[in-house]
């Protein structure tokens, strides 16, 4: 989901925010056959010895009240390298007792500490220092991210880290512009609203964009003056610990941000059901989102923000620029190994361009470069873990069995690690499992449609509603589709544009609430109405 620079280069060639590095990355990505050292999946038979990540794991404990500490139980769990399945490090395993300790620290920091009491300008300056430190340690953080997650290093270093820095700076700028309202009264009263920090925020983040999700959660919560207990995904605990250390180096007081590594049923559940947590924000699967919401309901009715799964349609109309649509549809699905909640996983193509589109989509997938994510020019690394890997392969088999045409891919890539071939299905029908479920892998499903009304109905016929892509040169078609699709984001002739100011979130079972932009502030603010009588007012 983190591809503003990348996709902006694809869709807006005049973008002024592109770095030359990203440009270089793009040119390799678009013309991979020209890259000397790139092996596409069709020509490489095995993954060679994995490259050295060039970074060491210095932080593997929990971070509570400004310090790295062991878990109360002393337990640890391994975090794995998705390239090989080998252990990178053993990480302290947080459970209910650790969540209690972290919440107590966050509670104290909120109720008595300086963070909500300092001026917003001071908070903003600390956040700006944090952004500077992230920038300074860009390459180490990106290497940790790639090592733990398997995403291409160039993507982490040149696209995601700058986006993370950007989000932190964006919310730093909000800190001193959080406005309540003075409100008109029906009678002789003076009315105003105060926007106050909500308190202790619990945040549970996923493994697909570990640090970016960290920034989306921590940025607005900090700007509003809250304190935080954040649980990372058990697959990717490393980068958040490093970033949190930098956050404290920047001047965030102890107890304001606490990070617990651990598993959902233990640490996550304890956080979601904690009686002293005032707010919960979760990004992950729809099934887990349901559990989180239920735990919040059963405990203290904490408000919940959910950013969940998707099965986002990518609609290519008959008048679309087919080459551009093919490239972006490819990107929309395969980016980050297909592990994006907003992946364009249902590619609807108008019958008039369908055959051409399928042919070109297949050709594009065939030349996608898969390999060690530390290697320059690689577009696709391994899937996050064996569970995902197996699940995706099961879905691919289901696709074949249900009668979809396997155009390319369909198998694991190499013999080691969790690599999967870029896979394209055509002749996919709406009722096939691969068109209904969120696969979260490099599997593109191409479907055919005849008219606008039909594609609107089919695109909306899903329990999800996260995002959609619309490709057409006709503005009436674009406007009709834009308003008709029941989704939180519509990208028209572009995809995966993720500016800090653009709100992101789902309709239907893709979630509740919005992250990023001004909208995310409201997730972390309480509104207090203040009413007082007016004696002899000059006006009302």
């Amino acid at each position, binding site marked *: 989901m983190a591809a503003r620079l990348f996709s902006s280069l694809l869709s807006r060639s005049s973008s*002024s*925010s592109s770095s030359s590095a990203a440009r270089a990355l793009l040119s390799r990505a678009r013309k991979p056959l020209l890259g000397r050292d790139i092996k596409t999946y069709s020509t490489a038979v095995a993954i060679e010895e994995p490259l050295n990540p060039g970074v060491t794991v210095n932080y593997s404990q929990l971070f509570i009240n400004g310090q790295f500490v062991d878990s109360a139980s002393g337990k640890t769990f391994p975090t794995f390298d998705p390239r090989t399945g080998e252990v990178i490090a053993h990480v302290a395993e947080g459970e209910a007792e650790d969540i209690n300790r972290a919440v107590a620290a966050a509670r104290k920091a909120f109720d008595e500490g300086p963070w909500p009491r300092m001026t917003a*300008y001071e908070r*903003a*300056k600390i956040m*700006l220092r944090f952004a500077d430190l992230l920038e300074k340690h860009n390459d180490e953080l990106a290497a940790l991210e790639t090592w733990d997650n398997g995403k291409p290093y160039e993507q982490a270093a040149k696209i995601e880290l700058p986006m993370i820095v*950007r989000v932190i*700076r*964006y919310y*730093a*700028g*909000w*800190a*001193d*512009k959080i*406005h309540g309202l003075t409100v008109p009264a029906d009678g002789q009263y*003076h009315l105003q609203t105060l926007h106050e920090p909500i308190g202790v925020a619990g945040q549970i983040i996923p493994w697909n964009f570990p640090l970016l999700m960290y920034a989306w959660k921590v940025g607005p919560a900090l700007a509003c003056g809250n304190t935080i207990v954040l649980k990372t995904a058990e697959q990717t605990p490393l980068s958040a610990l490093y970033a949190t250390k930098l956050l404290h180096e920047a001047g965030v007081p102890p107890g304001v941000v606490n990070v617990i590594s651990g598993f959902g049923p233990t640490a996550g559940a304890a956080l979601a059901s904690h009686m002293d947590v005032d707010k919960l924000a979760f990004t992950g699967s729809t099934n887990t989102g349901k559990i989180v919401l239920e735990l919040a309901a059963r405990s203290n009715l904490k408000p919940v923000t959910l950013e969940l799964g998707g099965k986002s349609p990518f609609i290519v109309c008959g008048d679309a620029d087919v080459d551009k649509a093919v490239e972006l549809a490819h990107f929309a699905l395969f980016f980050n190994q297909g592990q994006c909640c907003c992946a364009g996983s249902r590619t609807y193509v108008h019958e008039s361009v369908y055959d051409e589109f399928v042919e070109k989509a297949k050709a594009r997938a065939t030349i996608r470069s898969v390999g060690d994510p530390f290697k320059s020019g690689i577009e696709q690394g391994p899937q996050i873990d064996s569970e995902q890997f197996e699940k995706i392969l099961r879905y691919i088999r289901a696709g074949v069995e249900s009668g979809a045409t396997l155009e390319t891919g369909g198998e694991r890539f190499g013999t080691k690690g969790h690599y999967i071939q870029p896979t394209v299905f055509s002749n996919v029908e709406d009722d096939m499992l691969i068109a209904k479920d969120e696969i979260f892998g490099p599997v593109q499903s191409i479907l055919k449609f005849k008219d606008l009304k039909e594609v609107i109905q089919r695109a909306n016929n899903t329990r999800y509603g996260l995002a959609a892509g619309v490709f057409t040169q006709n*503005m*009436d078609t674009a*406007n*009709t589709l834009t*308003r*008709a699709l029941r989704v939180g984001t519509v990208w028209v002739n572009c995809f995966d544009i993720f500016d*800090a*100011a653009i709100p992101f979130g789902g309709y239907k079972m893709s979630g509740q609430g919005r992250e990023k932009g*001004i909208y995310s502030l409201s997730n972390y603010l309480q509104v207090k109405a203040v009413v*007082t*009588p*007016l*004696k*002899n*007012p*000059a*006006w009302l």
Partner: protein
Amino acid sequence: MAENQSDANGSLKTYDDHVPEIKFTKLFINGEFVDSVKGRTLETVDPRNGQVTARVAEGDKEDVDLAVEAARQAFDHGPWPRMPGYQRGRIMSKFAVLIEENIDELAALDTINGGKLFSFSKAMEIPYAVTSLRYYAGAADKIHGEVLKMSRDLHGYTLREPIGVVGHIIPWNGPATMFMMKVAPALAAGCTMVVKPAEQTPLSALFYAHLAKKAGVPDGVINVVNGFGPTAGAAISGHMDIDMVSFTGSTEVGRIVMQAAATSNLKQVSLELGGKSPIMVFDDADLDSATDLALTGILVNKGEVCVAGSRVYVQERIYEEFEKKIVAKAKAWSVGDPFDPNVRQGPQASKEQFEKILSYIEHGKREGATLLTGGAPLGTKGYYIQPTIFTNVTEDNVIVKDEIFGPVMSLMKFKTTEEVIKRANDTRYGLAAGILTKNIDLVNTVSRSIRAGTIWINCYLAFDNDCPFGGYKMSGFGKDYGLDALHKYLHVKSVVTPIYNSPWL
């Protein structure tokens, strides 16, 4: 006289070793320091001693034309309005850091140019100007239009677009504050600009322009033309290619600026003008803090502040004690060389200002006002004036009506709330007001009743970047500070198109 002196020997102690080397004295046009077209210069004078500190290029119409051409080019074809707001914000953040690095030199320039307290400039005014720059840097990527609720099958939205080339005409009383108050929101909006600093205080503005360039502000975005109002100032407000003029200064000149805008291209005008702001002290107020606030309200920056609390109304029950305390404090107020860290009041900014204030004081005496303290110059050279308090005056007295712009307070007594509201509003100005009381009903009643742009309750001069500032009535229109100031430099464009088959409207 002796009470207010930092040195009892008749002449004030001076700190000439603090005077910095003056690096920038030309005009700043299109990223370069250049001489004026006619080659003329003007003198800047050190108000501590009346001596010439520098000869500065004097801009006139031709120079304004060149500056506008550069700003026009930078707006119509340059990168500034075309880069993402985030990028503008990053450059502005860098500008802020450069100011912090040069703060001693900048503060000293304002002291030798404007007679401002060096320690105040260094510890308060310039750091505050830096926070303004950071505030608007953080706003540059938060300029939102709205998507509209149209009443037919229409899709409508608004775009907020930079207004274009802005002319800023700024005064001499707070060179750092005024420069940044105007320039920062206009930069964030994506405008380009021509700044005319006051002829008394051009030095720090030139330094800021130099630092802006160093920070990465593209050439032509900020141009600085030093010069006089009737020449350079008039050329800006009457220019056919400037899209907006933002002026801070006297009400008289504000009127001329607006007229020039009206007779030229109807450019938008924002005016932040004079004031005669009331401070109302009710009988439950704490006398120690009330006298401190009221005294600072008039003596800050030697009274050369548009929001100076120049009319102080005290409820009758506490009036006598208030008068006694504030007079004692005024006598103890230290006046002297503004480089001296123990001094609270430096010289008036110019000879003209000095003489104008003294003539008002004489007028007050002639009108029969009672002089409680002060009322005379201080020392034998420079433009120092004693803190001065008059009483036994009414709203009919000239010293109560006119903005004196000096350390001269009119202290008055009132009986009832209704009375003080009426008298406080009995002025053509409406910039600010102070209310001192702990009574919540009184606070609410008075704050809504006063026709002024800022109400300070149990505080005064409590400026903040997020808090819009500007006048009612003849104190001007348009706001500085806050997001209102950002919006001032933005046009609203409405975009409308039909939609077909929308599932909702």
